[in-house]
């Protein structure tokens, strides 16, 4: 394996470069900027799960004092597009319009009002009269796929839908070898079916956008987004205006987790501003966020494993049916990732089959959510591995050891299955999964605790484990660029399209540049995510930023270093090949040196003048997986069915941690989100398709009292293709809690949990029924 070099700034838990502004409450978020004459925008959400709008009468609303603009399907562009903020051409269908004469879920857009105050806008919404022709709702996967089901997208102008007449958005089917032969030749076969729920990201800052015109009448969108460049492109497409007439600014973002990889509101406020010439602000209430923003795709996933007596897998089959709600945003790609981010982990199986479908329903719209399908896939895969271990009488850790992918190995799945299309062949060039397993097992006390049923009253403890991989960006699709320019005091402007949504990417990207240029972090001035001033980057998704944007930054820094050497070589009268950087100076032979400030002074004012500056791009040719071993100790109350997670250990191979504090923070946050997803979080939906618990009181995300003793252990490797040896770990942690807790519950009370969240009711039912729930 490649050796890790010595680093000066990389590998240090530097404070976040934006930390001081955040901790002192500076006005750095979208809604903190107040502009005079701003209109307040509210959206009328559909009260029906499935209906056609016969007529809409806005005359009373329009006549109200203080109402400036009303948008409906009758006065807005009809362009079909996707709200999924993905690279172009998007792998999601063009099945959405700004507004339409058909609504497909409770909360779907019917109209928007812009008014002088929020109160007036709300009153105007109430004055809009809509005549709905109700259509039969479609409230489950089975309902959508049944013969004669209502066709949810029956419009002729939508494109990119696999089979609209059968409500099928996407269909994936890939084969390696012959799974049937593999199962026939197996000594043990297990098969499990798991179902996951509607769950939401719930960033503490909801979706919020402020739009206004600049002095040249260009449209400025100041938006809480993960994808500023995709916002610019998709808003231009939707509104039918040139890309050059839009500038997107991403200020600080109050959390994303995938939900802000969606162009959800920018088109509406943008059009209000274009129509009225006035600034417009929209900020979703928490209730609106629950009913009309995005969710995770609920799925039903079946996994079948076959293995020999020796424990080596002979065949893996995974079948996934995904509910993609009323629109197909991310439908295909989340489905594909359910297989592509899970199956390569067990490359010892010579036969593999992944197939599945994403289907429309008239329910809230899932989109991107941290983990992106892998979370749903690892639940059945890792609980099936636990069952297989028991069946074969092999320790669960040992069964993983016999089957997981290793250094210098590959999987045919990498090439067969990518982001909604064929993938990219790759071999694993860094993998410390073995050490993750060892360290994690020691820390949880696996050998002492596994299989011991020490009852404490009604509470029974148990331990469980699981392993997983994810990726680092989307190979041959993602692109990031970075620009560096030098100032005459020896500081640098780092201009990046990369999108810091709280992850700390501004900080770690500055650390990479500072490392190459041997300057302290405060000499790196970061400007990110402004489509006028920073180069292109796809944005914050697919665990891409550290690996892809990081490499663009490293390359830009190396280019600018070469320019610095050229200037210094001429000043010092030596060859540039003899120069190196240290302590903000260029150092040559015989103790000759020149400060970076002097280098830039010379280039700017004195000799052979030019701006020391460089731009570099990165399009990754592979997606090196981070690896994770999870261990949990739980206690189950056999009287109430309550699960308490006592101790959770996550040992992760993230390559080199550019900033260990931030890397741990990514893991800790993802794991706690995953624990909520495993135990308490569930959007409850009525028989008429309405979200019944649209508040943070009724939709329970973890608070400080709900977290276990949580230990994240960074087991560093060196990824030779990554910037400074790094891989990405933004998502992987969220996949762990469900299977790990489920396996620990089995160790405790001997029941298999098949449906999330593992509420006391479900656990108790499983205990009473004796086996599964």
């Amino acid at each position: 394996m490649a050796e890790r070099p010595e680093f000066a700034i990389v590998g240090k838990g530097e404070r976040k470069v934006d930390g001081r502004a955040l901790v002192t409450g500076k006005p750095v978020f979208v809604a903190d900027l107040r502009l005079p004459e701003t209109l307040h925008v509210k959206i009328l959400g559909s009260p029906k799960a499935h209906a056609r709008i016969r007529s809409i009468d806005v005359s009373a609303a329009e006549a109200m004092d203080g109402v400036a603009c009303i948008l409906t399907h009758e006065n807005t562009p009809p362009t079909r597009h996707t709200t999924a903020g993905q690279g172009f051409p998007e792998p999601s269908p063009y099945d959405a319009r700004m507004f339409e004469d058909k609504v497909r879920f409770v909360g779907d857009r019917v109209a928007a009002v812009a008014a002088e105050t929020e109160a007036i806008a709300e009153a105007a919404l109430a004055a809009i009269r809509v005549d709905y022709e109700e259509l039969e709702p479609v409230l489950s996967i089975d309902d959508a796929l049944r013969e004669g089901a209502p066709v949810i997208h029956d419009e002729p102008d939508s494109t990119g839908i696999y089979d609209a007449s059968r409500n099928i958005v996407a269909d994936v089917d890939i084969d390696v070898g012959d799974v049937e032969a593999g199962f026939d030749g197996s000594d043990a076969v297990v098969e499990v079916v798991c179902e996951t729920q509607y769950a939401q990201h719930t960033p503490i800052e909801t979706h919020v956008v402020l739009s206004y015109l600049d002095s040249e009448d260009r449209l400025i969108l100041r938006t809480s987004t993960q994808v500023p460049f995709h916002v610019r492109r998709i808003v231009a497409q939707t509104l039918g205006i040139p890309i050059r007439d839009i500038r997107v600014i991403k200020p600080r973002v109050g959390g994303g987790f995938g939900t802000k990889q969606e162009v959800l509101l920018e088109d509406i406020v943008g059009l209000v501003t274009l129509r009225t010439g006035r600034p417009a602000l929209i900020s979703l209430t928490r209730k609106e966020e629950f009913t009309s923003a995005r969710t995770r795709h609920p799925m039903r996933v079946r996994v079948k494993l076959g293995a020999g007596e020796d424990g080596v897998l002979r065949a893996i089959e995974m079948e996934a049916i995904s509910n993609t709600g009323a629109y197909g945003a991310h439908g295909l790609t989340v489905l594909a990732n359910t297989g592509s981010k899970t199956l390569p982990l067990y490359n010892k199986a010579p036969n593999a089959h992944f197939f599945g479908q994403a289907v429309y329903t008239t329910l809230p719209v899932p989109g991107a959510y941290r983990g992106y399908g892998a979370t749903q896939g690892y639940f059945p895969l890792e609980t099936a591995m636990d069952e297989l271990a028991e069946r074969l009488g092999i320790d669960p850790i040992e069964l993983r050891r016999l089957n997981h992918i290793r250094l210098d190995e590959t999987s045919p799945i990498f090439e067969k299955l990518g982001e909604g299309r064929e993938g990219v062949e790759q071999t694993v060039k860094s993998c410390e999964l073995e050490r993750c397993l060892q360290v994690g097992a020691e820390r949880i006390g696996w050998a002492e605790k596994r299989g011991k049923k020490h009852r404490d009253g009604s509470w029974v403890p148990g331990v469980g484990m699981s392993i997983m991989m994810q990726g680092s960006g989307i190979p041959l699709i993602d692109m990031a660029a970075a620009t560096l320019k030098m100032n005459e005091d020896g500081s640098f402007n780092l201009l990046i399209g990369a999108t810091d949504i709280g992850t700390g990417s501004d900080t770690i990207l500055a650390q990479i540049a500072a490392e190459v240029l041997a300057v302290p972090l405060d000499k790196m001035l970061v400007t990110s995510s402004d489509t006028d001033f920073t180069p292109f980057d796809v944005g914050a998704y697919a665990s891409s930023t550290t690996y892809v944007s990081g490499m663009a930054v490293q390359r830009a820094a190396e280019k600018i270093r070469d320019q610095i050497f050229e200037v210094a070589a001429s000043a010092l009268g030596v060859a540039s090949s003899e120069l190196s950087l240290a302590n903000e100076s260029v150092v040559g032979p015989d103790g000759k040196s020149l400060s970076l400030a002097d280098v830039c002074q010379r280039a700017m004012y004195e000799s052979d003048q030019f701006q020391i500056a460089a731009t570099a791009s990165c399009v990754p040719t592979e997606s090196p997986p981070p690896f994770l071993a999870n261990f949990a100790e739980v206690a189950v109350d056999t009287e109430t069915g309550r699960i308490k997670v006592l101790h959770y250990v996550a040992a992760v191979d993230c390559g080199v941690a550019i900033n260990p504090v931030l890397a741990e923070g990514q893991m800790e946050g993802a794991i706690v989100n995953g624990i909520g997803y495993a135990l308490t979080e569930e959007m409850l939906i009525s028989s008429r398709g309405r979200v019944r618990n649209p508040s943070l009181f009724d939709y329970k995300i973890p608070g400080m009292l709900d977290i276990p003793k949580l230990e994240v252990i960074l087991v560093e490797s060196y990824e030779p293709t990554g910037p400074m040896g790094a891989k990405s770990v933004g998502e992987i942690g969220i996949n762990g809690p469900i299977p790990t807790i489920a396996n620990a519950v089995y160790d405790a009370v001997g029941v298999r949990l098949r449906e999330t969240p593992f509420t006391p009711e479900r656990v108790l039912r499983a205990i009473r029924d004796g086996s599964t729930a």
Partner: protein
Amino acid sequence: MTITVTINGTSKRLAIEPGERLFELLRREGYMGVKTGCGTGDCGACAVLLNGRAVNSCIVFAAKADGGEVTTVEGLERDGRLHPVQEAFLDEGGIQCGYCTPGMVIGAVDLLSRNPEPTEDEIRQGLSGNLCRCTGYVKQVRAVQQAAAAMKGGGNDG
């Protein structure tokens, strides 16, 4: 109606609307460090100190602040120096997106003023009303512990 309220040390006479919430008043007056995540008192992002105690300003009437003292996150610095809780959040990595941070910091300042040496359980209990979706809380608990240690050593007492 008009109220008199001291905000971050400055006394102000402010006209308020009937039913106006303290959160709305503070934002309207430019204290943008006061955030909102729910509007129903569930998340703690809007926490401010009212007469020295943390309250969720989204469910407190502005009128209730009449004659009182309000401290927002903008008011914690002393002589250009951050409050030890703020320093600790920066050092320990207790901040990711930073949106819950003002409320979380205010909650911690309140907690430490009542209980200068809290146990880990007391910290978790004391800040259980502040939701954070980014950090998993581990580093925030540690930040409060570090702040408690720093303040015991005679730092800024806020």
